[in-house]
């Protein structure tokens, strides 16, 4: 989705076979010990001699023209070695490129990292300094004089769409509208996805339900703040250590905005403390490089939590209208969605990605989806785990619940009646291949969760989710070491989802050696060819395809070495159980050669053994999941407690099942947080009021119940192990499932997010007189 799959892509057909390593849970997780002992090196842990500390001056206004910036006093402060503004960066023309699941425009990228004509949100960088200490750097920021002309601002998406709203960009005319508009607008683009005849579909409906939903912006909430260390040398090369999901993308963006050759920029991704889509864009990196260039010293920059909230991420706040028509027996005849998405200060919300997901769980003949990408005075949105989809499911899955209730059909049955399956025509183009949606619903139907008794004020909700799996450019090298162990060098950053363990399992399975004999090592940008970032649930799915290809390439090389040792032809050698063996008795009577024996002799018999993969993976398997949730509502305070949680999802094949379950858990916890309390709160001046974890309330451990999981395995036919992406699907259903459970508990339909205690209590109070009247 979003990005077009390459017609020259690599797919390897699924083959069913006995597995020794894949599908097991090895106890020795490769990154566990270093992480729990605090030895894993995150970007903020990396220091080099002589480094300066860089800090950013940020706009205190939501919208202001920058009339002038005077840095002279800051430059004179003892210990300050460099001060930069937008004048230190070239302006960029309009030029689009993929960044993770989202598309970026370099005109806007350069303006996001450093404001040019205008500051467009509270926290927008306007200058940066590098000094010999953090306190000097902070003191220097206070000496920079910025002359702002404060402009009217707009925060809310619906307000921003009004004709008289303050304009962020006077040169922006809505794209995708015929005839082309003559007046500029905050609506950057309108996108449409259509199937069949929507009006005819609604005519054939016996029941039509149309509802409006509003959701607030939510942050990815990664524990690790953005951090970067840059060294620019007099030879004109830049080296960067940074916190990212995709070092090759960061390199590409840096080369572009700094007008450097790609070959002169080297980026090393540090251990990642969470990204969830929010670490695919440059923020600190270009500032650190230019500060280093201007000072001649390495420059280290670490965001505070306040900066992370105000100036990175978040996902879009939205206004969504869902309209679904059904026959008396619950068959959907037509479905329509209007999606109004905040994109932040520049265009480019997740609409191109999530527009296709709106109704893809269901087989519907008539669909219309209209998306409006709307700028407002907030930080430019970034991808957040299934970008934009949880809010859509909040709408669609609660409307489905309402329809099921109205028609007195069980909520699982109505989904089964309409369920997408192999051959279903999607409204974004392709027909679906083999998928496991029905399997997750059938598993839910018989799950013990449904037998748990519910007390008064407790309720149960169900919701489902769909997300596709990206492929894209993937490169890897497998080095067979002299002792027969293997080093797998991967370029898809392990976003702490267990990918390096999964890669090791795949390599061990392919080579026929123990899991412990394989070590997966993160590459920098100089040791492999371009890899797309870890996004779109592609990490294990695409990375493992490269692991298979590199392993098989190395096996070919090892068979060649064995053939030379035995003085036979390479095609007379086969690879089995970690050994080269004669293909048949006719080849000759040779003792099998182990990987260690071959590795030791390889140098003489042709050279070191390595396998490679430089591919564009296609054929990603879509993932589907069903969530069951029980909640209890405190009628006097509006507090919602999640009591019981079950996730059933098709993983295609779970390589490391415990890690797959951890993905389910993590996404559900983020979903619970988003559903109940997480929201960006702005004051009347457009200043974010809760830029910290105290008032931006992600759940703590005691807010979350035990989360039961069930992995369904319907293999992806285009992957040798049948793997589907798993990381994003499980964040999609929670908002809707919780909303449905609240309704079941106390009879109120929550359509405004978050479903926080004051909102729930207000809805209960509003419903109380109505209920009393009945």
């Amino acid at each position, binding site marked *: 989705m979003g990005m077009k799959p390459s017609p020259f892509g690599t797919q390897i057909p699924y083959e069913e076979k006995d597995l020794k390593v894949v599908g097991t849970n090895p106890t020795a997780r490769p990154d566990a010990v270093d992480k729990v002992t605090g030895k894993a090196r995150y970007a903020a842990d990396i220091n080099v001699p002589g480094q300066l500390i860089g800090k950013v001056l940020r706009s205190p206004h939501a919208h202001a023209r920058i009339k002038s910036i005077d840095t002279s006093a800051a430059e004179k402060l*003892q*210990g300050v070695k460099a001060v930069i503004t937008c004048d230190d960066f070239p302006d960029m023309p309009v030029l689009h490129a993929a960044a993770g699941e989202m598309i970026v425009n370099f005109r806007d990228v350069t303006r996001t990292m450093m404001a040019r004509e205008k500051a467009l949100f509270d926290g927008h960088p306007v200058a940066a300094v590098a000094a010999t200490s953090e*306190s*000097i750097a*902070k*003191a220097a920021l206070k000496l920079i004089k910025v002359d702002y002309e404060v402009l009217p601002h707009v925060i809310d998406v619906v307000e921003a769409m009004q004709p008289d709203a303050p304009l962020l960009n006077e040169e922006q005319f809505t794209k995708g509208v015929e005839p082309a508009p003559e007046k500029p607008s905050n609506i950057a683009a309108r996108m449409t996805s259509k199937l069949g005849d929507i009006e005819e579909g609604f005519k054939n409906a016996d029941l039509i339900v149309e509802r409006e939903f509003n959701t607030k912006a939510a942050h990815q909430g990664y524990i690790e703040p953005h951090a970067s260390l840059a060294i620019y040398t007099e030879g004109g090369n830049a080296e960067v250590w940074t916190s990212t999901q995709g070092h090759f993308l960061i390199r590409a963006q840096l080369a572009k905005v700094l007008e450097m050759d790609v070959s002169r920029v080297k980026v090393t991704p540090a251990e990642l403390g969470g990204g969830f889509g929010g670490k695919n864009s440059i923020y600190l990196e270009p500032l650190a490089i230019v500060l280093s260039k201007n000072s001649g010293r390495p420059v280290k920059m670490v965001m*505070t939590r*306040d900066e992370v909230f105000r100036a990175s991420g978040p996902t879009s706040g939205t206004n969504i209208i869902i309209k679904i028509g059904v026959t008396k027996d619950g068959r959907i005849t037509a479905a329509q969605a209007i999606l109004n998405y905040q994109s932040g200060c520049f265009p480019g919300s997740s609409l191109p990605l999530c527009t296709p997901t709106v109704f893809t769980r269901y087989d519907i003949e008539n669909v219309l989806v209209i998306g409006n990408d709307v700028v407002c005075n907030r930080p430019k949105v970034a991808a957040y785990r299934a970008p934009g989809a949880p809010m859509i499911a909040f709408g669609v899955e609660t409307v489905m619940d309402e329809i099921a209730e109205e028609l007195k059909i069980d909520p699982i049955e109505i989904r089964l009646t309409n369920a997408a399956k192999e051959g279903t025509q999607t409204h974004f183009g392709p027909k679906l291949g083999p998928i496991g949606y029905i399997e997750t619903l059938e598993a839910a139907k018989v799950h013990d969760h449904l037998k748990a008794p519910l007390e008064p004020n407790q309720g149960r909700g169900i919701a489902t989710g769909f997300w596709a799996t990206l492929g894209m450019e993937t490169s890897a090298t497998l080095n067979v070491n002299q002792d027969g162990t293997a080093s797998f060098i991967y370029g898809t950053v392990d976003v702490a989802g267990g990918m390096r363990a999964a890669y090791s399992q795949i390599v061990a399975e392919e080579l026929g050696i123990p899991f412990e004999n394989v070590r997966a090592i993160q590459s920098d940008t100089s040791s492999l060819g371009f890899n797309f970032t870890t996004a779109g649930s592609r990490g294990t799915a695409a990375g493992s395809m490269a692991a298979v290809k590199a392993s098989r390439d190395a096996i070919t090389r090892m068979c060649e070495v064995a053939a030379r040792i035995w003085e036979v032809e390479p095609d007379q050698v086969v690879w089995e159980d970690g050994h080269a063996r004669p293909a048949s008795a006719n080849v000759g009577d040779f003792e099998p050669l182990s990987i260690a024996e071959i590795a030791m002799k390889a140098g003489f018999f042709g050279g070191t053994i390595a396998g490679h993969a430089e591919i564009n993976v296609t054929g990603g398997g879509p993932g589907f999941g069903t969530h069951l949730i029980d909640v209890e509502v405190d009628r*006097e*305070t*509006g*507090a919602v407690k999640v009591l019981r949680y079950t996730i059933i999802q098709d993983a295609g094949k779970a390589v490391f099942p415990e890690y797959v379950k951890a993905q389910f858990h993590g996404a559900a916890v983020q979903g619970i947080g988003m559903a*109940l*309390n997480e929201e960006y*709160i702005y004051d009347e001046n457009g200043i974010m*009021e*809760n830029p910290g974890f*105290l*008032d931006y*309330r992600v*759940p*703590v451990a*005691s*807010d979350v119940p035990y989360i039961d999981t069930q992995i369904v395995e319907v293999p992806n036919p285009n992957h040798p192990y049948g793997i589907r992406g798993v990381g994003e699907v499980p964040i999609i259903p929670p908002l809707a499932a919780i909303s449905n459970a609240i309704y079941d508990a106390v009879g109120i339909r929550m359509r405004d997010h978050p479903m*926080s*205690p*004051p909102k729930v*209590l*207000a809805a209960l109070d509003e419903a109380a007189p109505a209920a009393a009247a009945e």
Partner: protein
Amino acid sequence: MTEMRYEAPTTLDDAVALLADSKGSTTVLAGGTDVLVQIHMDLIEPDLIVDIKNIKELTAIKKEKGGYRFGAAVSGVELMDHEDFCQTWPGVMDGVKLIGSIQVKGRASVGGNVCNASPAADSVPALIAAGATATIVGPKGKREIPVEEIATGPGQTSLKDGELVVSFFLPNSPAGSGGAYQRFTPRTEMDIAVVGVGINLTLGDDGVCSAAKVALGAVAEKVLVVEEAAAALVGTQVDEAALDNLAAAASAACRPIDDKRGTKEYRIKVAGVLARRVALIALERAQGGQK
């Protein structure tokens, strides 16, 4: 650049002298769970930090004639580990146990919680309801005031230049007394009270409430002592009617603001709800012989 000065006196006299003589901005440091956060967030830039954790009067917990005294720098966990204190003052401990995480309570002190002067401080309504007083020393000597007289508004206290809180005194309460504190927060832990309610009450032999004190947190610029709410309980058996009157009085006393943590309307309503819930816990404790 000027350097921040750090001092860790070992006697009260030295501490008072440092505070009184300081020319620039001065911050008293106990557990540091507020002070260090405020420094990191650039909310304060103290020229002098006076660490009071090495002064013995500030770190002791002891039973005295007529009550319990504990030092202002005693950490939450030290109080939690003091079995007799916990048994004697379960309501105060309800509040202390809600401050931050276990790690935060390992550092954070009640003195800091009181002097940080947040209207939402969890230990304060409970202390006030329990009738706690504070001993303050300064350049002019010692004075003793009720805890409710310390905070005057958000971040503001009645302490004069050079003064510091040494200890808190909890007077013994009569038999048949019980206390409790609860707060409402959107999260279960690691959160700031949207509303906090501390109630202590005493029952006579006939089961009739003879005395009560009700303190509300996070519903005004400082913790409120609500006489009308206490009066709703006194002379009753803390029955449904009394609880309704208590809830109404608690809600009526609120003068909250709308902010990111809750709306006015919500705080007013929940103050009544919590008052009722807390009164029932205090009642149960009073009936069970606990204070």
